[in-house]
């Protein structure tokens, strides 16, 4: 089920590298869901919570503004800051 490789990177190093099923990206006009087979896309991210769902459960990350690229089931998230939110 997990088909998307998600990379969350900041200037100070990678924060999350994981294979997931779905990613929810926070943008200025609401959140965008990315599933397997999504068309290539570049989108601006705003400060907010990024959610990703995998077979191990759902993870939430608080991210600063930045940019995300989606291509060939690979999501690269380049942001100013990111940290995992505890349950």
């Amino acid at each position, binding site marked *: 089920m997990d088909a998307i490789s998600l990379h969350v990177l900041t200037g*100070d190093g990678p924060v999350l590298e994981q294979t997931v099923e779905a990613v929810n990206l926070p*943008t200025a006009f609401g959140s965008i869901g990315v599933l397997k087979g999504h068309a290539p896309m570049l989108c601006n991210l705003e400060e907010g919570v990024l959610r990703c769902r995998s077979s191990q459960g759902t993870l939430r990350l608080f991210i600063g503004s930045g940019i995300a690229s989606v291509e060939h089931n690979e999501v690269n998230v380049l942001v*100013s800051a990111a940290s995992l939110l505890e349950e």
Partner: protein
Amino acid sequence: MANLRAIRTRIKSVENTRQITKSMKMVAASKLRKTQAAFGNLRTFSERCAEMLEEVSAGVKPCDSPFLQPRNHPGAVCYVLIVGNRGLCGTFNNSLLRYLEEQARQESREQFLVVCGRWGKDMIAGTGLRVEKTFEISDTPTAAEARALSAWLRQLYLDGRAEEVVLVYQHYRSVLSQVPARKTLLPLPKKGDAGRECRFLFEPDRESVLKRLIDLYIDNTVHSVLLESRTGEHSARMTAMTSASDNTDELIGKLTLQLNHARQAAITTEISEIVGGADALKNKQ
């Protein structure tokens, strides 16, 4: 005997110096590992950022972003001089300053400086170039420090106070070799080919994505240059301190030899005095 004591004091002081240089070497080595790791962490980010910019740059026109088009009116050149935070690192800072002076001589436009690092306020003032602002950059520059600097530089460029922003820093070749280099930060070098079709969707639109990406790219360039320069500084200091420690070892060896000579000479004199005294007594009898 006075000579002996003098040599012993000298050896003691050289030993103290050796202790200092050795610990400075170790500190530099650990800082070097830290900056190298940070540099490695940044590399993936830089690569991804450059890839994305390449994609978006397809068919981009200079008028799409103020950072892409050269300024029409003649303005000043801003040199961002990235020096070390301290001295004691060989010619690292001095050679960079000489390089800057050479660059400044060849430039006919008005020019001013932005200094990053604590080293040599007086030395920099000696070049006669106006220092607009000084930034404190830590020994392992973080993304936040780089962002503060690049945001200020972007504003400088947008306000028209500078038509060109040039980073002057020590390019890191290896632990043993750093060479002074310059990199034009703004305006951005031209990229991409106009005819290529872009296969990406943009959210919310191409202009804002391009703007965001360019900001990210500039931040990233500044951050990597800062890290590169600091990596060079730490390795230059490590090299300098290694050779200083080696020199103290050599010096201690020489001094010990001298000390032994002097001691031997003193003993010989003492013995010959005793023998001479004994002989004199014998002759008297």
